[in-house]
């Protein structure tokens, strides 16, 4: 019996050490956001600050704070970035889920000519990075007068997320026993009606998982946004982070504060649907 106990203790110790190593950058980020820039930029290093406060967060949110010399994020249009980021991420997630689920249904429930070819083409589109698309998109979007707008970002991010959504959702839809939709059709439903009434309600967890992936991808996207957005009308958080490095001295504290704020929605989302997320990933691994 002691063998088992020892074994588990060893695993536990390894696990905790590894987790600590993975957590250090996160903790350091939070800690830095709360200590004065002067202490951040000194040598010898100040390990335990006595002047910790939430001023950088308050400054970002537009509250008046005592000035500290240089930078502090009060000139960073946090509200605009938040609005643009959340609209672009939620909007593109919404459309990607609808469009991607329709495609997934087509892939998982029908056998038709060209099915594998179209599926592969969608997957290949994922091999193309945003940086390769950004400039032609800028030219196209400028002609259509949607460059530097949130709708432009929504369109770009929807396309970015459709392939992965279609892939994940086809795994989830494939999990549903065929008998269920057959039973619905015997009861007089058309194939489409059985999809809406039987299959859609059953893939809730799949939609949650795909939704999170789409949201995170759009929320964190940088290459396309950095090229097609120019002003506060459409700039998102990842592009906005550069505001803190524009001067000759970087405002690390302000940048860390905005980074933490940027992480909060992502963390909330991921924790809420963690189980579905894991299931989605593994279903994608063995099916689809």
């Amino acid at each position, binding site marked *: 019996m002691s063998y088992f106990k020892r*074994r588990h203790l060893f*695993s*536990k110790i*390894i*696990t905790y050490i590894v987790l600590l190593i*993975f957590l250090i*950058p*996160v903790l*350091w980020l939070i800690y830095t956001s709360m200590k004065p820039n002067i202490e*951040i930029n000194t*040598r*010898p*290093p100040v390990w335990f600050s006595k002047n910790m406060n939430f001023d950088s967060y308050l400054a970002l949110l537009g509250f008046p704070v005592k000035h500290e010399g240089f930078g502090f994020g009060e000139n960073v249009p946090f509200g605009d970035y938040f609005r643009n980021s959340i609209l672009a991420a939620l909007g593109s997630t919404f*459309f990607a889920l609808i*469009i991607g689920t*329709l*495609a997934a249904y*087509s892939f998982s429930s*029908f056998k*038709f000519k060209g099915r594998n070819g*179209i599926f592969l083409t*969608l997957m*290949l*589109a994922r*091999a*193309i*990075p945003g*940086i*390769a698309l950004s*400039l*032609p*998109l800028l030219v*196209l979007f400028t002609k259509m007068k949607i460059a530097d707008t949130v709708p432009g970002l929504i369109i770009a991010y929807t*396309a970015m997320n*459709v*392939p992965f959504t279609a892939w994940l959702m086809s795994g989830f839809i494939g999990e549903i026993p065929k008998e269920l939709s057959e039973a619905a*059709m*015997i009861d*007089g439903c*058309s*194939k*489409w009606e059985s999809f809406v009434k039987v299959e859609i309600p059953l893939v809730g967890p799949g939609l949650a998982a795909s939704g999170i992936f789409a949201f*995170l991808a759009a929320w*964190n996207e*940088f*290459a396309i946004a950095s090229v097609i957005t120019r002003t506060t009308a459409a700039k998102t*958080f*990842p592009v906005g*982070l550069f505001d803190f490095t524009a001067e000759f001295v970087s405002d*690390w504290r302000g940048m860390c504060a905005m980074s933490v704020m940027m*992480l909060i929605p992502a*963390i909330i989302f*991921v924790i809420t649907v*963690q189980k579905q997320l*894991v*299931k989605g*990933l*593994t279903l994608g*691994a*063995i099916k689809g």
Partner: protein
Amino acid sequence: MHSQNIVLDKGAGDNKFFSESKTRLPFVLLLPSLVVMFFVVGYPMLYSFVISFTNYTLVSSGGPKFVGFKNYITLFKDPVFGRALLRTVFYMLIAVNAEFILGLLIANAMSHVIRGQGILRTIIMMPMMFAPVLVGFQFKWIFNDQVGLVNNILYEIFGHPVIIPWLIKKPLGFITILIAEIWMNTPFMVIIFLAGIMAIPTEILEASDVDGATEWQKFIHITVPSLMPFIYIAMAVRSLDIAKAYDLVSIMTGGGPAHRTELIWTYVYRLAFTSQKFALGSAMSYITVLLAVLFTYYLFRQLIRVRKVRE
């Protein structure tokens, strides 16, 4: 009464709606995806294909002139391009394998911790929520030569200022970027492998306990083989994503100094935007995309083969 009719109809051959839906519905369902993909991916790729045969620059005043394969020939003569391509392949191989090995070991260790596993999983998933840009800034600063966390720790250990230019020195820059990449993406592997380990039937592990198998033997002969499909998909997904690496490197070093950490996509950016040779950048992104597409195709073929063997 009604349902009975349908059943009878079914025997008599499908009604008109069904036979129609079999041919059209799948395509109608795919139409929105194809339209949006053409608009955002297809058109830009066609556009840069055409541009890659011209002398178009971001500052040229006249219309672009057709120059044939000139840009492609320039690229093949450019030693930086070849090196960036090779470096990207190295970067991908090292990162994917390191993430795979670390992910497997961490997942295996975590699987023994029964109580509080949900919390541990949430903690290990933290890096997955970071934007690559954020990871870039974060590690650029952790490895800052003057006041970075790493040099500060060395300062405490040795008692005098240690100024190692992590991001600038030759092999160090590349290694630093790799550390950031591995930190950011190992959790993805951990999560997938952990779910895979949880799906292994406990009877098999119990039986091997009875047979007196050691921890290591169980890991090699039971855990790893049962995880094979998970390993394949996780490595395929990560390879594709790392082949696209841009954000992280762009923030940490921008591919410099003197092309020391240049990957394909930072070089494309440098040519197309910084040097404003947009046509040349297009040609390069075209070659790279073709390689990436071939690589993706190969990976998917492998995946399908593995799945078939399993079935």
